[in-house]
């Protein structure tokens, strides 16, 4: 059992309320870093001193927040209204067990039993705004006594392993956090590594920009979790990456064109180390690179992600070999990160 993944995924931490997961991570990394601090947004920023061989300042980002829900109102019948925090799948929310607030009150996202559904109701998707969380309270007063407006709600999902497959909630992006923690546990890098466990990615990449602005790195690597969509498909489209196919490397998404030189360095590293990899299908989605890349004269940035099925739902699935290879690939890419990688052909022209 991968205890690191278990602890991280079973801990609560929706966007804007990352206290528990931040506390867990700071405990896990304290012995392996030289400094750590929490900034005003709540980003946990640690540094691991290098051997002094390189002057580069390299930031590795993993967002620690997960998608979840927030309590927004009380109904007369003792149930709670809620809003999504980040992109929560409507189709997957109904009938799931959740925990509410700091006291972790257990509730259920109620669903009318199939016996009582009209024919047309069986065919339609229930909208998130018409769902309620039920803790079994008998009245509005009782419900209000236990939970406050604005309390965070996360899904309750135990981490489990089935051979090389792991299932649990919030692999997006606790898989990235776990990989970054593994990097911090390893030998020193030639340069000072700035590890940024960032907040509020799921609501619009809000934490990472603040961290990058303050830390002013020369280069940034983002560790992420990306949707695998490898289920049977009639058309020859097979969008996106597959479980077990290796780390996914981003080229372009809605927010960023990843630095082509950095991408080439990562794929070269994969080939050198014999690590399988997949190019994530370019197009939609976005990672913290979008918030980091355009700061202070530009920062070359790239993303390596663990593929996961069913993300942004109460349960997601990864392949543990993919996760291990993300750690190996990120570690190898960082150890071989020489400034010359970012030299352009036209720099040579300029020198003449």
């Amino acid at each position, binding site marked *: 059992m991968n205890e690191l993944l278990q602890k991280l995924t079973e801990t609560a931490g929706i966007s804007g309320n990352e206290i528990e997961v931040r506390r867990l991570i700071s405990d896990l990394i304290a012995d392996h870093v030289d400094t750590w601090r929490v900034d005003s947004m709540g980003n946990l920023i640690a540094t691991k001193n290098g051997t002094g061989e390189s002057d580069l300042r390299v930031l590795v980002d993993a967002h620690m927040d997960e998608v979840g829900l927030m309590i927004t109102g009380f109904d007369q019948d003792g149930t709670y209204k809620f809003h999504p925090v980040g992109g929560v799948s409507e189709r997957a929310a109904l009938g799931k067990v959740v925990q509410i607030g700091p006291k972790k009150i257990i509730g259920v996202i109620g669903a009318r039993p199939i016996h009582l559904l009209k024919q047309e109701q069986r065919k339609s998707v229930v909208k998130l705004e018409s769902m309620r969380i039920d803790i079994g309270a008998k009245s509005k007063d009782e419900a209000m006594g236990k939970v406050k407006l604005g309390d965070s709600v996360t899904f309750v999902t135990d981490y489990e392993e089935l051979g090389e497959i792991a299932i649990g909630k919030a692999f997006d992006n606790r898989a990235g956090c776990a990989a970054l923690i593994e990097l911090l546990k390893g030998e020193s890098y030639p340069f000072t590594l700035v590890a940024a466990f960032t907040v509020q990615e799921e609501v619009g990449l809000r934490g990472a920009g603040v961290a990058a602005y303050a830390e002013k790195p*020369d280069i940034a690597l983002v560790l992420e979790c990306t949707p695998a969509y490898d289920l049977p498909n009639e058309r*020859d*489209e*097979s*969008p996106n990456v597959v479980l077990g196919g290796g780390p996914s490397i981003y*080229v*372009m998404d809605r927010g960023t*064109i990843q*630095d*082509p030189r950095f*991408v080439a360095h990562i794929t070269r590293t994969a080939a050198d180390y014999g690590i399988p990899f997949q*190019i994530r*299908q*370019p*197009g939609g989605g976005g990672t913290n690179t979008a918030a980091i*890349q*355009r*700061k*202070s*004269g*530009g*920062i*070359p940035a790239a993303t390596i992600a663990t593929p996961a099925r069913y993300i942004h739902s109460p349960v997601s699935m990864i392949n543990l070999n993919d996760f291990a290879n993300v750690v190996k690939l990120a570690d190898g890419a960082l150890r071989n990160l020489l400034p010359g990688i*970012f030299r*352009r*052909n*036209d*720099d040579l*022209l*300029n020198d003449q």
Partner: protein
Amino acid sequence: MLELTKKLVEAYGPSGFEDQIRELIQAEIASFSDEISVDAMGNLIARKKGDGSGLKVMIAAHMDEIGLMVTHITKKGFLRFTNIGGIRPQTLMGARVQFADGTLGAIYPEKMDSWNSLHPLNKHYIDVGAADKESCPIPIGAAAAFVRPFAVQGDQWMSKSMDDRIGCVIAIESLRRMEHTPHDVYFVFSVQEEVGTRGAQAAANGLQPDVGLAIDVTIAGDTPESQTMAIGLGAGPAIKVKDSGMISHAGLVRKMKATATQAGIPYQLEVLDGGSTDARSMQIAGPGCAAGCISIPSRYVHTQSEIVNANDVENSVRLLVALLSEALDL
């Protein structure tokens, strides 16, 4: 300028993959600049030093062009793709593209039920002549740009990627003609404008100029049943007042109008409903700056036959040189 324009508009350089076009521009400006650098995102920055009495001015003309990126290769070797920047499906059927290595491809849609219907991008494909997936020379993640030769007909210049290689031409020519300036001028040939004015954002965050001026195309409203837009080809450079991403600095607009009038340069005033330029990013980067834009009227923007007028190009150069040669009292 004709030869330079032909060279630049025909070059390959979709957003994020500007190496080839940057090398061409760098060679053109090397002997006219006091300093040249390429920043982390790939912006090419040429500095023309002032006499110390003026402001720090950033001129932005973007080198990148719209394009496509491969997302999937079918078993039979056809390429599915997504857009890089604003691509409309109407412009795709039968279009020809090239990849960075020179590989050519033709685009076609899947079967359509009626000729009145239009498929979205993801129901189109690129045919590069591959027999199957295994022998396809192009990988997922490769970027393609359109192919279309430059043509001149009277005063009309016609090509792909006038947006914004014509802005690059104007910036290069101004840099060459400018003999003296009080200002510290940074000519930024920016990257990734077409995907959200990203390059200029990084450059302006680094340079933190006092004045930011974009040189970019705008939409002409002088064609049959076109959108209402009081901009015509041949009527002079357009001084931008507002677009959907920026309201120009009023003092800078006033100054540009006065400079044009004084120099006898015709001009038009531009209010653009949809779209924006690098000026948007410059205006709010770092502590902010006085931002504006000289726009070149263009027909058929974001198609492979963008048309501009030679006199507008020449007058844009004159306006920019005149503006940068005097004090900017905003």
